[in-house]
């Protein structure tokens, strides 16, 4: 029983970091209808900005995080302007955007390999990791509690932004139909920039937590494959779906590794992806919109 509880806590803490990344995928997908594989790159950019700012300003995590969030958000906007905007202005085949995003993800990864080197970096222990006892039943680290709280904070912030602000309304409208939203007077380019900024910002939050826990290296962005799977299971384009999918995935991974075999964990993860695509191609929370001709 205690073991089960412990593995559930482990799973939730892993899932909460996936959620921050998966939401970014879903957000972009809901507007532009393509999976932005460069998303992992934004996470890495956030991590490196945080690492170098920490070194420069003497381990002040607040300044470092702020700069990392802004930096990753701005780079996401730049990537959209440089790589995606010219394509989406010329064609509405989203396959090209998908291919461009794969290219961008390789470009970003290699920029870091060339400039700062492929060696991993360990962030200074700016976030406490001491063990915390949960009601005498399980042990987790202060870090996990913090990352869970941050995930909740940022995800509810996003929810508020989408439901209460004018831009949030525009984004929701655009997620139904980008072209009609444009016809209604929404500045589509500005809207897309905002979406990318928010996605980059959330990726940076995930990036900081991931790099503190697992060290920082140019290929850290590959972990977003799991977040992408989570977004698909939850239903691409659906934000609650992304969160639920992430938690399911985190739990599935930990429970498989803990009770079946650690070698099985990726088989289970990708098996779940295949099953989802077979039975519910739109995911748990996906909306089904008939293709209009």
């Amino acid at each position, binding site marked *: 029983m205690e073991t089960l509880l412990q*593995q559930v806590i482990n799973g939730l803490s*892993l899932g909460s970091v996936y959620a921050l990344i998966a939401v970014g995928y879903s957000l972009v997908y809901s507007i532009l209808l393509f999976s932005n594989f460069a998303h992992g790159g934004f996470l890495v950019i956030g991590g490196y900005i945080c690492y170098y700012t920490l070194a420069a300003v003497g381990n002040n995590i607040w300044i470092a995080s702020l700069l990392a969030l802004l930096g990753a958000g701005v780079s996401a906007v730049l990537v959209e302007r440089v790589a995606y905007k010219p394509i989406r202005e010329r064609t509405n085949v989203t396959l090209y955007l998908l291919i461009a995003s794969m290219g961008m993800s390789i470009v970003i990864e290699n920029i870091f390999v060339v400039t700062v080197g492929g060696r991993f970096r*360990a962030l200074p222990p700016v976030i406490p990791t001491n063990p915390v006892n949960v009601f005498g039943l399980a042990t987790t*680290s202060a870090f996990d509690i913090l990352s869970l709280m941050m995930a909740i904070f940022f995800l509810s912030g996003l929810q508020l932004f989408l439901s209460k602000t004018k831009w949030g309304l525009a984004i929701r409208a655009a997620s139904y139909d980008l072209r009609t939203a444009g016809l209604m007077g929404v500045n589509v380019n500005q809207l897309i920039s905002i979406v990318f900024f928010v996605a980059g910002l959330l990726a940076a939050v995930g990036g900081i937590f991931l790099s503190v826990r*697992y060290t920082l290296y140019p290929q850290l962005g590959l972990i977003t494959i799991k977040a992408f799977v989570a977004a698909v299971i939850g239903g691409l384009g659906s934000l609650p779906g992304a969160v639920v999918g992430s938690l399911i995935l985190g739990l599935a991974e930990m429970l498989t590794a803990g009770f079946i*075999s650690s070698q099985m964990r990726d088989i289970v993860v990708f098996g779940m992806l295949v099953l989802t695509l077979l039975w519910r191609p739109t995911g748990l929370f996906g909306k089904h919109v008939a293709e209009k001709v």
Partner: protein
Amino acid sequence: MRKIFVLALLAVFAVTGFAAGAMADDVIKVGYLAALTGDWAAYGQTELNAAKLAVAEINAKGGVLGKQIQLFPYDFRTRPEDAVNAFRRMAENDKVVAVVGANGSGINIATAPLANRYKIPQIGTVSTNLLVTVNDQGELNPYMFRTCFTDPYQGQLIAAFTAKELKKNTAAVLYDVGSDYAQGLREFFMKYYEDYGGKVVADQGFRAGTDVDFRAQLTTIRDSKAEVLVLPNMGKEMALIMKQARELGMNDIIFVGGDGYGEFMWEIAGDAMENSYWINHVAPEDPAMADFFANYKKTYNDECKEFVNGILAYDSIYWLANAIERAGKVDSTAIKDALENTVNVQLHHAVMSIDPATHNPMNKTGVVLVAKDGRAQFFTRIQPE
């Protein structure tokens, strides 16, 4: 810069070549295969320096069988094909009786057929792969030897240390399923640990490169009540594992690992490194090696940083000298037989005995390092039987 270096090297060869011609019968010609340029240059240069130091010391004491040892160093540029060419030249032009080096298994696997064909014994320094001394059909390469112990043997050392020194009878293993090195260490650890009366209570795997979160496995290990966690892996994953274990409140479990230890692990794991134990070939603080380090520094005005290579190269020369002494004549095949029949020869870093069936060192003493106060320190020597 590199051109000048090559020219200088050629000049050295030319001079030593002339000298050799002048007193051909009074010297014992020994080839040395070192990576002086390329990726392994730092290791190779240290090895050659250490080997020269050993030769100078032996010659100063009157040489071997009344003859002086003369070293014929060749740069193999970290490339197997250059190593093969160098070996040919050593055998055909320089007529060496033995070759020492190289410091990598891949290089020695490439030169093994030549050593067998020319019947010239070769001693690898840090060539830990099993296939150096036996080929992939399991047949012995009769002229290949090594000074270091093999990868799987480390598993036995870990078992001996855990069961006999730490006196802990329950252990867990968390190993990289995708690595031959980790698999070998694990297999031999489990086999010998049971022999020594220990019990492996948890055997968990992960995949290096894709897995960075080990909490699920660690939770299982925690529930198994293991007293020791054996980590037969490479540095980075081990550091993450130790950090995550302490985060899960596993404060009493003792970490024991092999020569995958690296200084950089402190950056990741921080205080979680403290009081972990690491099996290695040699230790910089080993009291028996103090003279070597002092002489090295005096001669080359530089610290012997790649100390594993330095010490193993240094003792490879001493081992060869001992074998020539026992052979009683300067003859390649006689030297090979003497190397094969090495029993309890006291070198600086260990006592050497060779298994004639595999040419691997038998029951060789290993060194245990303990991580304390932010660095790895000499803890003890260990010999399984």
